[in-house]
């Protein structure tokens, strides 16, 4: 039965697991390249954003569920970690896990409700829960969270030696976290479960006739995606030591959606590339535009306008994002090379 000949006939190679280390090395090199040009303090923010975008890509890119309330879990992770540091103890690992646990439980419960909805209702019901969370942090819990004044929450040294308020340590810490999250998602999305998730995106109703309980699978994806968002939030708290309700504002979600669309939804590299392009636009255009305006002698519009134009280009000309374009170019070259005499 299990003759290797059968497999050879398939023209698919069994995937060796060590490949993932090559991919992680590639990402590490990419990040270090960015580090040569961007201040580490900023780059740390970039990487936290990458983790958030990756978590969103699992839910939206892979499973096709567009949420407008993802920041609820980012914010929950951030605030639970912060409140833990202030009220319970200074251990960063314990504070991180507290943030993850609360967000996991919250998404597990809310997932039972939101995962019964589809399309616009799914997006909006998530946004509604996010608005409620935003309100709770600002008003009823203001005694603990200090509301709009913000919360200072420093942590002790990681493992007793690593000071996360130091830029280099913080950068290395978030960098390692990013690689761990990427590896986890890479394994998850190439497993049979990953294929199941992609088939749910295409036609949820038909998946049931393949013998799977789609609700259960969707709920699992929601909890995993939300908990990873919370991880990004918790990390933010640990390295910044200061929180404002901004971190749980539903408005932040738009940036995440932009990043996924720019890079190409449903592709982990797309999430990273889109995240990087978005952060570069957001952080450098505001600085460059006044300078450019001086050079050309005309007052150029604000950076948001340019972001809008880039998105329009992507929506109309590059439906599958930057990664989609790279891929089709690659296939085109490959085919041309094969058909050449």
């Amino acid at each position, binding site marked *: 039965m299990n003759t290797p000949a059968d497999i050879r006939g*398939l*023209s698919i190679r069994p995937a060796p697991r060590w490949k993932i280390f090559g991919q992680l090395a590639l990402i590490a090199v990419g990040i270090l390249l960015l580090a040569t040009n961007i201040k580490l303090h900023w780059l740390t923010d970039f990487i936290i954003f990458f983790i958030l975008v990756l978590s969103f890509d699992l839910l939206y890119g892979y499973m096709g569920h567009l949420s407008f309330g993802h920041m609820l879990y980012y914010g929950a992770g951030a605030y639970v970690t912060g409140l833990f540091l202030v009220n319970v103890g200074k251990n960063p690992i314990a504070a991180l896990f507290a943030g993850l646990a609360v967000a996991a439980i919250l998404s597990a419960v809310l997932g039972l409700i939101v995962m019964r909805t589809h399309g616009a209702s799914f997006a909006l019901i998530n946004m509604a829960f996010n608005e409620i969370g935003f309100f709770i942090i600002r008003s009823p819990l203001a005694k603990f969270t200090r509301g709009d004044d913000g919360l200072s929450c420093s942590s002790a040294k990681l493992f007793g030696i690593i000071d996360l308020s130091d830029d280099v340590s913080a950068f290395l810490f978030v960098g390692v976290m990013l690689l761990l999250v990427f590896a986890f998602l890479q*394994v998850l999305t190439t497993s049979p479960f990953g294929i199941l998730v992609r088939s749910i995106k295409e036609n949820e109703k038909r998946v049931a006739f393949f013998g799977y*309980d789609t609700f259960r699978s969707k709920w699992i994806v929601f909890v995993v995606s939300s908990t990873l968002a919370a991880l990004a939030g918790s990390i933010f708290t640990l390295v910044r030591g200061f929180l404002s309700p901004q971190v749980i504002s539903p408005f932040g979600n738009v940036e995440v959606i932009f990043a996924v669309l720019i890079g190409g939804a449903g592709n982990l590299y797309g999430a990273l590339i889109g995240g990087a392009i978005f952060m570069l636009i957001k952080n450098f255009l505001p600085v460059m535009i006044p300078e450019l305006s001086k050079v050309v002698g005309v007052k150029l519009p604000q950076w948001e306008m340019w972001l809008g134009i880039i998105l329009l280009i992507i929506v109309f000309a590059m439906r599958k994002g930057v990664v989609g374009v790279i891929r089709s170019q690659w296939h085109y070259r490959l085919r041309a090379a094969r058909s050449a005499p």
Partner: protein
Amino acid sequence: MNALITTQKLTKRFNGLTAVNRVDFGVHEGQTSGIIGPNGSGKTTLFNLLSGYFPPSDGAITFQGRDITRIPPHDRVKLGVGRTFQLVSVFTSLTAWENLVLTNVRFQRAEIAPPRFFFRTAQRAEILDDCAHALDWVGLTDKASANVAELSYGDKRMLEIAVVLSLKPRLLLLDEPLAGLSDHEIAQVVALIQRIKTERTVVIIEHKISKIVDLVERLVVMNEGRLICEGAPEDVLRDPQVRECYWGKEDQVAANL
């Protein structure tokens, strides 16, 4: 012989239209049946009820002596009800082998043993091997890594059958498996069904009666949501009620034969 599946006064109404009307349908284990009837007579709706696509308005369904009227489709698959769709239903955003990974029996079981299902690559040798066998059965081995969107309609139909077969169904419901295929492809699918029916209980909905007369042991005729006649194919096709009440004109009978 044992009844594998039976329905009791099964009824489905869509706002005023009764698509399936008090149908008592049954299939014996090992039997190959054909369902025929004009367009809109409720054949697909009957399959949708049997496979759990939607619940009936009335009546009940019994599978192997067990009431399955209200259980969801994925549980019916586990009990052994497999189906294909009138319009081929494979996942076009996946490759051929990825479609098969999902229905691979080992992973049907592995859903209960999560680590394998969640954390091992789908490109494991043993999974590829299972997919290779399934593809070999329908003659698609060389198209394993093709995107399904690029396959011909006939290949998609073959793939869909390979997918449903790897669920190892006791009861296989095929909804117009020959529709939209070329003559050559029809011959292939008919040959495939010939092989399948030696191992499984099969029910085929088909428009072109001539294509399945030799395949089935029993024909069931539906009209306006009701079963109007059933029996051996020769008898059913000779039945005056079938010939006159249902087709009306003799030339149409000829056209369909």
